[in-house]
């Protein structure tokens, strides 16, 4: 039998459905791996092996009697700890919510449970999905499986670390300014921020209502499409949920990129910010590979990265402070230093600045979407730098802002981070593939063609 740690969702689903793999044995193998190695990585805030075995036994009984529910039946998953699982605390990795027990499942949790998934636990996050990596919280920060002295990205830190480390084949994260794609980039896995409104945010602690997205982290592009297919869909109880019919995310996998038009937003990482040369070289090589595969690749221009970031952060901090103002008055000392400072940026944003940022959001987004009349997908950097050391606050502060993810929270576009290689130090490099709203299937098609033509996905971090 293959090492179960590295099974993809698609591979596991095939084996489980054919009764060649027991959900209980699969869950036990991953439980054993987590017990042996998570003390080094801190991917979990709350590890729940008993619940996992309960789910796995139920899945086994159902599959044995021929009642297979779909690709996630018997497959382990984890939830970022701002996503509710009924009966368990949703802590947001914060002292403030240590006793905050969820009364009901989040919408995505409901879908994963209904699909027969095996819940392994709640995963580390930056405090309130904004403050990290921090060493002044009730739990330590997650670390990078490729080198545990390095940052694993955030705020969906545990989701990235656990997936990359072979603890789980799939995890749920959230993304308001890049928080799915940052850990995906740093940990060398696939991470999608889907179209705004495609996945319900019900039962997910908000950071900034108009920018929050729930997304998926997996080791392969196909698995990512499978997970998004499961969690997408309209939810009348989420005011931001789109009524747009969801399309099959896996529908275009395997169709290649022949004839597709790819626009590279190179100025984000060469002019507006200067990315680390290894990152630029990795993205350039990926563009040559996609051109070799038959895509038409050319540069495109949009608004300067700094304007996108100013728009994102003005909206984000204003909305976030509205959520946190009461706690900032009553319990400021209970925040970690990073979350407190980053959230305080919203305290004195003028109402007109917030409104103007949302007005700019509309005009900038309209112009960005107009670019798609001449291209099928856009590509740009995710992080400007490989993961820095986790114990170097200056490097964390410097690299935290050096990213090109926030523009696509502003536009609401689907944006997928995929690995494009490794630095000389052995740390992952990544690019983003961005589509028109609700064009996830096309984004996955491009990413899948690239992934299949390279070998990055076959490398695993040295967790042992």
């Amino acid at each position, binding site marked *: 039998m293959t090492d179960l740690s590295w099974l993809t969702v698609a591979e596991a689903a095939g084996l489980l459905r054919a009764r060649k793999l027991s959900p209980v044995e699969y869950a036990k193998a991953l439980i054993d791996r987590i017990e042996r190695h998570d003390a080094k990585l801190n991917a979990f805030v709350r590890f729940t092996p008993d619940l996992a075995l309960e789910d796995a036994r139920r899945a086994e009984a159902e599959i044995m009697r021929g009642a297979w529910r779909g690709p996630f039946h018997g497959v382990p998953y984890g939830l970022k700890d701002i996503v509710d699982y009924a009966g368990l605390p949703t802590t947001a990795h914060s002292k403030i919510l240590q006793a905050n027990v969820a009364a009901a499942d989040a919408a995505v949790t409901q879908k994963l449970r209904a699909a027969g998934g095996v819940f392994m636990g709640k995963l580390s996050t930056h405090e309130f999905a904004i403050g990290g990596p921090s060493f002044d919280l009730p739990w330590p920060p997650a670390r990078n499986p490729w080198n545990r002295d390095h940052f694993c990205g955030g705020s969906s830190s545990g989701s990235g670390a656990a997936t990359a480390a072979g603890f789980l084949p799939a995890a749920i994260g959230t993304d308001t300014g890049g928080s799915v794609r940052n850990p995906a980039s740093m940990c060398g896995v696939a991470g999608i921020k889907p179209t705004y409104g495609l996945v319900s945010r019900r039962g997910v602690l908000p950071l900034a209502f108009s920018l929050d997205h729930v997304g998926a982290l997996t080791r392969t592009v196909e698995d990512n499409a499978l997970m998004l297919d499961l969690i997408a869909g309209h939810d009348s109880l989420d005011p931001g949920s789109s009524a747009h019919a969801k399309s099959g995310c896996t529908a275009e996998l395997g169709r290649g990129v022949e004839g597709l038009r790819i626009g590279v937003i190179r100025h984000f990482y060469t002019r507006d910010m200067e990315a680390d040369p290894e990152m630029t070289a990795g993205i350039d090589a990926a563009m040559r590979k996609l051109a070799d595969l038959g895509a038409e690749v050319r540069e495109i221009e949009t608004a300067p990265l700094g304007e996108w970031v100013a728009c994102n952060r003005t909206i984000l901090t204003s909305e976030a402070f509205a959520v946190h103002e009461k706690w900032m008055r009553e319990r400021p000392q209970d925040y970690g230093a990073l979350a407190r400072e980053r959230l305080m940026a919203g305290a004195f944003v003028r109402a007109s600045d917030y409104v103007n940022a949302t007005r*700019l*959001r509309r005009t900038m987004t309209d112009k960005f979407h107009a670019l798609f009349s001449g291209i099928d997908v856009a590509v740009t950097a995710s992080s400007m730098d490989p993961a820095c050391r986790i114990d170097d606050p200056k490097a964390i502060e410097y690299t935290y802002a050096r990213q090109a993810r926030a523009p696509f929270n502003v536009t609401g576009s689907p944006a997928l981070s995929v690995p494009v290689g490794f630095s000389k130090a052995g740390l992952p490099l990544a690019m983003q593939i961005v589509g028109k709203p609700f064009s996830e299937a096309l984004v996955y098609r491009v990413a899948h063609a690239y992934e299949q033509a390279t070998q990055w996905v076959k490398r695993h971090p040295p967790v042992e």
Partner: protein
Amino acid sequence: MEEPSLTFDEVKRMAEGIGMTRLTDEHLQQLLRATRVAQARRAALPVATLGPADEPAHVFRLAAEDSR
């Protein structure tokens, strides 16, 4: 237009004005830095490109059932 630079005492008064009275000096230093960052972001917003009729990205919208 360049923002006048905020001082510690000013930000302390502003914080007290919105009920944030439990901040330590360390917290107030954080608030001062954070507010300066927010002001720099405001300066980076290209608001001069907006016309009077440019609407915010999200406007109030009633669902059909609200007419019943």
